[in-house]
């Protein structure tokens, strides 16, 4: 049972990390970016390209990927969000779906359909503690998840730029009146989301492998984690991700693997029926 909990916990951390950039963009500009999975995928692909084709060390490939993804984040904003941000929500969603298709097919054209593996910073080895196997890469996932989610809390509450981003997220008009350059903050949000996608990509790729469809698989699971955690809630995202990861692994191991997804989704629907706003979602008070 403990082995399954370790695996479920690690999957949950991946879902949470992959969903973080999505939540960040949603909270900051109210946009639902369905192409975020493809950004995670591109983060991994850049890492693969720099470390394998250029032959540079993995840490340098990571730094270069962060830079490349920051540029991609700006481009994404300039092409698929800023020009249409005042249009109806459905237009923004459709633009993000369009970007998802564009990025997926670009990956197929550049790297081909074969699954590719990005090496882990800690290698392929495992540590056996009392019969429980911990992959070194799983330990890295746990550490990075703890670091990222603690760091974000400090970043948004303790730094000037973090507070400006929060102000922009809460009320763009008021932020503008306070002298905050809103367009710059939106650009920064997309850059941060792309950087988070790179981190997630480097953690996903050694376990899930990279192929042009992996972004879609990531965003579906991350989206479920976001919904059951409470849309927009960052603690909810972590709890929702871990809940989903544990449910999937434990159901497959102890109940049925054939109907694993059916039972997992049934449990998730039940949770949402009992708590429609998710674990940490804000209750919306009825206006009289």
């Amino acid at each position, binding site marked *: 049972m403990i*082995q*399954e909990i370790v*695996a*479920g916990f690690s*999957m949950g951390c991946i879902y949470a990390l992959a969903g973080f950039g999505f939540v960040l963009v949603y909270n900051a500009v109210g946009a639902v970016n369905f192409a975020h999975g493809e950004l995670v995928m591109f983060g991994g692909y850049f890492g693969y390209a720099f470390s394998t084709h250029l032959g540079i060390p993995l840490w340098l490939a990571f730094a270069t990927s962060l830079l490349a993804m920051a540029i991609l984040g700006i481009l994404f904003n300039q092409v698929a969000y800023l020009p249409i941000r005042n249009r109806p929500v459905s237009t923004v969603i459709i633009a993000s779906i369009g970007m998802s298709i564009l990025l997926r*097919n670009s990956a*197929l054209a550049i790297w*081909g*359909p*074969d*699954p*590719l*593996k990005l090496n882990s910073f800690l290698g*392929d080895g*495992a540590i*056996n503690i009392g019969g429980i*196997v911990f*992959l070194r890469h799983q330990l890295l996932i746990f550490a990075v998840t703890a670091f990222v989610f603690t760091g974000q809390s400090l970043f948004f509450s303790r730094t000037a730029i973090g507070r400006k981003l929060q102000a922009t997220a809460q009320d763009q008009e008021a932020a503008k009146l306070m002298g905050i350059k809103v367009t710059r903050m939106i650009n920064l949000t997309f850059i941060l989301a792309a950087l988070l996608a790179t981190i997630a990509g480097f953690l996903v790729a050694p*376990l*899930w*492998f990279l*192929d*042009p*469809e992996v972004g879609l*698989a990531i965003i579906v699971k991350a989206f479920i984690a976001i919904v059951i955690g409470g849309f927009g809630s960052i603690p909810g995202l972590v709890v929702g991700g871990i809940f989903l990861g544990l449910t*999937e*692994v*434990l*159901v*497959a*191991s*102890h109940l049925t*693997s*054939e109907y*694993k*997804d059916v039972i997992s989704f049934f449990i998730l629907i039940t949770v949402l029926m009992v708590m429609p706003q998710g674990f940490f979602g804000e209750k919306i008070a009825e206006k009289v």
Partner: protein
Amino acid sequence: MNNFFKNLSHFALVLCLFFIFATTGLAEVKVGVISSQTSSLAILGQRQINAAILAAEEWNEKGGINGTKIRLIIEDSADKTTTAVTALDRVLGKNVCAILGPIYSFQLFAMFPEVKKEKIPMLSTSGTRKLTQMDNRWYFRTYPHDGITKRAYTLYAVEELKSKKPALMSVTTEYGKSGHEIITNILKAKGIAPVAETWHEKADKDMTGQLMRVKRSDPDIIISQAHPSDTAIILKQQRDLGINVPHMASSAASMPSVHKLVGEAMEGVYVETVTLPNFDPDPNIRAWTKKYIEKFKKKPDSFALLYYDTANFLFEAIKSVGPDRTKIRDWLETTRYKGLAGQYKFDQEHNGAFFAIIVQYHIKDGKAVPELKKKYDFTPN
């Protein structure tokens, strides 16, 4: 003067019709190729398209079929049935005389009603058993079906590796379900019941749950059938979780791209496959593999080699009877063909290949190298 213009316009019309007829009808033998060029399924599909292109180019370099060049009409079936059916419509719209179809059975099943209605010969290298049990006289299979390959690797597990407690891990696609049924029936006939049976989705990225269930059942072998990515995840996680029993994997584990993902965990893995184009000592296959790699900058797999044979088999049919759909079908039904990978001869159900091999992989200098363990030939008398 009026007559002059009238005659001129008639002449121009005849000239136009001649050119249209000449460029679209007589000058080429048109053959459809439907396979996955995009989506995750392109891992197999692109290699098959490459194989068809290679075969057609070789024929065209020698002057084509009876002096007429071959033109492949290539359409993408991606990973959906709707895309596959649309691709079929497009290919049929170009008036092809036969089609080289996709490998994926769920797409073939969706295309069958139109294939039968249009009476067009379709050949493909799919393994799903039921494809040739659908009473479709226009479909021809040029890959050993699951009844052959699954029989080979189940028999090897039971008779050669002396397994008494196998655990089965299957993917929930038609391929996995069909294979699972065949394996359990063979085991039942041998008086053996699997100690665990697990299922996974093709897109699943973690198999810890399934593997822990297998581990608790204390098997003496794992028999798995899966597609490339999930095969790699199963093999890697089995090693990570310390489940030290032999593994008999389906043909996806013979693909070079899977070996790159699995790495050291390929050591000792048994795999059922049909050919080994990258390791075969046959000089003709070696030459073909070299040519393929030079042209496409990728290693071929067994599916690509059999697709190449399939394309050549079809071109031979067109050479013998012309681009007539019914005559092509009748010729295929009655003719034996010797390809690079082996002999092809269609039975009543239109199954054309009956050979399989079992190999065991060993890691040498960081690369997975196969060792031939046993050849099976179930060709009916």
